[in-house]
């Protein structure tokens, strides 16, 4: 039943993440010009991870792998979401790679290219949802919410990946970009909301979808869902981030506290845990969506 | 308009890796076929007519050959069993020719399951020496030959064993239709009738499934009958795959069919719906029969069969009204071919029921086939062997059995008793399929000489001292086969592709050369072509024409429906009362006989049946067919949900099946399609020969659970007289 497996889940995950990381870096570049590490991390990891994602896609496409010239044909069918996505990814990759190169050469980034990058990063994030969202055969996928969910999750994993890598380089800075944290928290909360809304709506529309959802919620994948996605991937980071933001508010009125926070002694562990948890959750989400793909039946 | 991009180039290109392997006979069918398609796009396709060997129906086929390789086969449009169509086995069994597990050279046994190649000449010499020695020491009655009779075999095998002075020629019918054959033979003078299905208005099948145990044209005819609004009733403990074509399913308790038929006969007479004119003119003993039938009321049968008395009456009455276009189809193996202690009596009762309906030789009824008029070898030039002096072993014990087919398992019995000394098996897997394999093995091990002629390492071959490799049916020509039926005809199996394994030989050559080694070569002083020319003579058709057409029918020799032929019973009529039975020590009038064993609340009766994709044990090693078993879990046993629930068994669970003879582990299919009293086992699995790499280890062999036994009347194997218990075990 599972035609697309782990590799495609990883591809969808990485594409969303890469777009999210790119958008994070652009946002940080604007909002926190001093947070150069975060900006650079975002700009470096996004083309690299998108590249890894593309490689995975190629590996999964066995026939193309055996005869790589065939990949040219990927650009030929404009009615296929995959063709359109291939264009999105290509433009995004070009822009992201250019920007990463400029960053590396310590040169100024062409604004137009950055806007193009931002535009296609958004397009890529949406594409990962539409790729499977247009598949009528699988009612679980065939919903308007799925692309939104994937965009939200893409952004949140993008932020998580950027913050995680940045934390290793500059502990202080990750606690400095409060508005990113706030956005991240809202995204996670939105994700929980979207997941349950999607389940509620789809399970009532169709038997196959209901079967998919019961597989996830109470069936063979329920552990992965409740512990992996909801527990680790969403609730844990929501709680930690919320606590952190709350204490941050307190610290802001207390100069001693601020110093403690900035030294990052307890903060770094929290960041590592939260962001890894978000990344794990993002991957599990893609995995679950592919695993629980129950096609329509003929009876 | 069609696009031209139809070739499968992409597919073939990538298979060049397998090209290195593609030397003759060492790769599977698909591997070479991929290869050869690559080499042969747009190549000319030769079409050669022949016959299928996927089962005893031997349907007409057309072999499509590209570059000297078999590509595919299609159904012969003129052949009466094929009518242009073939079943899955027919298509798939053709891949046998390129099976990597074929026997490729003569083998001599050097230890349990160990064989060494031996030259043909040496093999002939050693076999002949042993045969002659055994004949000298124990008489010709101590040697035997058993086979599934195919065109060449039917001619050559009995001739060979007779040439050695023995009458011991046997066929596989002892575990197929011996009981039905005996019942019919002594009632209507033929071991079976055929059925004019296409024109029938009311058809009852008792343990006969056209949709599982297939002959293509029969299914087609039944579909036509259905289109014409015929009532089609299936009597089976299992809703078999013919269910889709049926109007009603009677889920009978297994082994109780005799009660149903007796009660339906009772109703016909009670309701005055029997064909009195027909009975008057064409039967003997009706009075005695009618008297006996009085006690077999529908109420009596309801208790035994589990079918409501009302239903029994309704159907009998409706059939009586639809007569003569109503019939119980003659059936084959499923319910009373060889299954229960009452099977011969059931066969008899069915033949009699049809006679009550007066449907014999009527449109839409039971039909006695016509035979084509084929010639014989000139006996002056080619003398036939003398009649053997002693009768066939088993005839004494089972005088009602059809003598030409015999009771093949008598060979095993007499081997165990030390009376039988040699057995030749051609095209037969007796060790796995004729009786309990443990007993068969013990029996064959007692023999001084066992010879197998086969195409693969069967379980029987494994127990043989010598194995002689036949060429596959795709690579050989056989004796002309006469086709019986409403319209008689003939068909030729002929070589479609060159021999793949140079050391293999067809049986006409094997018997001739072995006979020469035995010193009886004078009875085989002709070639296959000479035999076929002689057979063709009265037809006026040339051998060349037959080779081109493959199947030729003789519409001018078609039988005329409505005219009863003189029957081959002692009275020349249908015998409701049988002196033959009486002389053999049996009740001359049909009567109710209990099955030997019956299940209780905690046990089941084990029943079996065919699956559309396999033939007996011979197709388990054909990968294109076995893959279907794997894809759809077809080796599972069937159990009724109510019984399964009580035993804590769920769909797909692993269970243990235990009988008096064996214990097997298998997964279950839980289905409403089976009677709560029965466990159904598909009959094609449980290959124990490791040389059959595809078939080995899948499912279990039904016969493992069947006690070695003979039904009193016909000597058949009583293969459903098996009680089993089932319990859930860990996978």
């Amino acid at each position, binding site marked *: 039943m599972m035609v697309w497996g782990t590799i495609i889940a990883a591809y969808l995950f990485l594409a969303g993440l890469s777009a999210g990381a790119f958008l994070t870096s652009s946002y940080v570049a604007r909002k926190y010009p001093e947070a150069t590490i975060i900006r650079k991390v975002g700009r470096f990891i996004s083309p690299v991870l998108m590249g890894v994602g593309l490689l995975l896609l190629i590996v999964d496409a066995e026939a193309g792998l055996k005869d790589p010239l065939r990949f040219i044909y990927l650009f030929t069918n404009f009615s296929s979401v995959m063709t359109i996505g291939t264009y999105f990814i290509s433009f995004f990759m070009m822009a992201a790679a250019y920007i990463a190169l400029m960053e590396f050469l310590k040169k100024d980034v062409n604004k137009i290219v950055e806007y193009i990058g931002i535009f296609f990063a958004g397009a890529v994030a949406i594409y990962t949802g539409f790729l499977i969202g247009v598949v009528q055969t699988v009612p679980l996928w065939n919903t308007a919410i799925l692309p939104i969910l994937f965009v939200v999750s893409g952004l949140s994993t993008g932020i998580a990946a950027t913050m995680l890598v940045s934390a290793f380089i500059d502990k202080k800075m990750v606690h400095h970009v409060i508005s990113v944290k706030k956005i991240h928290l809202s995204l996670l909360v939105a994700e929980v909301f979207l997941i349950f809304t999607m389940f509620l709506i789809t399970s009532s529309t169709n038997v196959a979808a209901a079967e998919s959802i019961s597989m996830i919620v109470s069936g063979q994948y329920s552990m992965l869902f409740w512990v992996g996605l909801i527990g680790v991937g969403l609730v844990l980071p929501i709680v930690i981030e919320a606590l952190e933001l709350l204490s941050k508010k307190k610290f802001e009125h207390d100069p001693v506290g601020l110093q403690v926070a900035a030294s990052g002694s307890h903060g770094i562990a929290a960041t590592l845990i939260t962001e890894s948890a978000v990344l794990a959750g993002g991957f599990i989400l893609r995995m679950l969506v592919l695993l629980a793909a129950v096609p329509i039946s003929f009876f | 308009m069609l696009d031209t991009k139809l070739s499968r180039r992409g597919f073939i290109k990538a298979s060049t890796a397998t090209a290195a392997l593609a030397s003759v006979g060492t790769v599977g069918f698909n591997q070479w076929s991929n290869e050869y398609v690559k080499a042969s796009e747009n190549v000319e396709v030769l079409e050669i007519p022949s016959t299928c060997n996927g089962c005893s129906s031997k349907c007409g086929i057309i072999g499509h050959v590209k570059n000297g390789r078999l590509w595919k086969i299609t159904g012969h449009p003129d052949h009466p069993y094929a009518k242009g169509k073939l079943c899955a086995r027919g298509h798939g069994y053709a891949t046998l020719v390129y099976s990597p597990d074929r026997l490729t050279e003569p083998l001599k046994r050097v230890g349990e399951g160990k064989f060494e190649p031996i030259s043909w000449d040496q093999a002939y010499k050693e076999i002949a020496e042993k045969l002659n020695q055994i004949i000298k020491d124990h008489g010709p009655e101590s040697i035997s030959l058993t086979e599934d009779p195919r065109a060449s075999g039917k001619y050559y095998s009995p001739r060979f064993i007779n040439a050695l002075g023995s009458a011991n020629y046997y066929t596989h019918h002892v575990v197929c239709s011996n009981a039905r054959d005996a019942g019919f033979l002594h009632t209507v003078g033929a071991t079976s009738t055929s059925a004019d299905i296409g024109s029938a208005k009311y058809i009852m099948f008792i343990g006969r499934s056209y949709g599982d145990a297939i002959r293509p044209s029969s299914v*087609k005819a039944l579909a036509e009958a259905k289109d014409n609004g015929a009532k089609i009733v299936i009597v089976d403990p299992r809703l078999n795959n013919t269910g889709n074509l049926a109007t009603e399913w009677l889920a009978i308790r297994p082994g109780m069919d005799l009660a149903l038929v007796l009660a339906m006969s009772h109703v016909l007479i009670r309701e005055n719906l029997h064909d009195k004119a027909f009975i008057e003119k064409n039967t003997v003993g009706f009075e005695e029969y009618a008297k006996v039938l009085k006690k077999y009321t529908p109420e009596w049968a309801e208790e035994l069969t589990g079918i409501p008395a009302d239903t029994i009456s309704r159907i009998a009455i409706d059939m009586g009204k639809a007569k003569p276009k109503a019939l119980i189809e003659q059936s084959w193996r499923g319910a009373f071919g060889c299954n229960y202690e009452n099977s011969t009596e059931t066969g008899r009762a069915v033949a009699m029921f049809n006679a009550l309906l007066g449907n014999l030789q009527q449109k839409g009824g039971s039909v006695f086939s016509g035979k084509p008029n084929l010639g014989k070898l000139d006996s002056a030039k080619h003398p036939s062997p003398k009649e053997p002096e002693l009768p066939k072993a088993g005839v004494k014990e089972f005088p009602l059995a059809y003598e030409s087919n015999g009771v093949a398992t008598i060979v095993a019995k007499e081997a165990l008793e030390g009376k039988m000394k040699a057995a030749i098996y051609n095209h037969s897997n007796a060790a796995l399929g004729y009786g309990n394999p443990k007993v068969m093995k013990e029996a064959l091990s007692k023999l001084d000489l066992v010879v197998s002629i086969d195409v693969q390492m069967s379980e029987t071959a494994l127990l043989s001292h010598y194995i002689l490799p036949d060429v596959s049916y795709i690579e050989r020509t056989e004796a002309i086969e006469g086709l019986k039926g409403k319209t008689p005809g003939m068909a030729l199996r002929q070589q479609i592709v060159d021999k793949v394994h140079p050391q293999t030989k067809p049986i006409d050559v094997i018997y001739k050369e072995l006979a020469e080694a035995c010193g009886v070569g004078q009875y085989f002083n002709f070639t296959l072509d000479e035999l076929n020319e002689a057979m063709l003579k009265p037809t006026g058709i040339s051998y060349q024409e037959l080779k081109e057409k493959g199947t030729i029918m003789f519409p001018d020799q078609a039988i005329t429906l409505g005219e009863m032929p003189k029957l081959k019973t002692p009275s020349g009529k249908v015998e409701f009362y049988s002196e033959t039975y009486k002389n053999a020590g049996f009740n001359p009038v049909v009567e109710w006989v209990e099955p030997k064993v019956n299940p209780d609340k905690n046990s089941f009766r084990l029943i079996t049946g065919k699956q559309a994709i396999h033939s007996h044990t011979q197709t388990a090693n054909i990968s294109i067919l076995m893959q279907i078993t794997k894809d759809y879990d077809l080796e599972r046993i069937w159990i009724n949900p109510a019984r399964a629930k009580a035993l804590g068994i769920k769909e797909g669970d692993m269970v243990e099946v235990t009988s008096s003879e064996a214990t097997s582990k298998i997964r279950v299919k839980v289905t409403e399609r089976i009677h709560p009293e029965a466990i159904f086992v598909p009959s094609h699995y449980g290959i124990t020969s490791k040389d059959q790499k595809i078939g080995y280890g899948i499912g279990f062999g039904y016969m493992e659970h069947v006690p070695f036994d003979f039904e009193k009347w016909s000597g058949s194997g009583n293969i459903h007289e098996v009680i089993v218990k089932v319990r859930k075990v860990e996978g």
Partner: protein
Amino acid sequence: MARYGMFIDTKKCVGCYACRVTCQMQNELPVEISYIHFHEQETGIFPNVRNEIIPVQCQHCEDAPCETVCPTKATYTTEDGIVLMDEDKCIGCKYCVVACPYGARTQDHHTGVINKCRFCADLVAEGKQPSCVSTCISDARIFGDLDDPNSEVSKAIVKHNAQPLRPDLGKSKIYYAR
């Protein structure tokens, strides 16, 4: 120009797999690949049971979802409405496999290429019947031009009021009597 289609009578199909095997031979498929799949549905309780067998292969959909999603145009439709594969273009991304509502597409694991029922386009071009139709032992299958109201297939569809498996998912060209 024709619009080829098929009629399958599940009330006649006995699930004999002859169509599957002849198709494999015709198309020289590896044994583990089949263009025809069988779905069984049992209804009722012993002894009032019905078992329906539905042979499913590519339905040659109009506006075929597999063609729509195929990024390489390896999947295409002929003028006669037969959905075909250009195996030299297929990259094996399996998008068509997930998009096909009928599970009709299989991947050849030796080559990675996807394939499926081709309505025996080469035989049809020669004026012959597809292999699965000509061998069907119960005459449960009829093939022909859906646009010709006098064709056997059109007449059978009308007579039995045959329907596509999932008419709600768009038009396909195999009609089932159930």
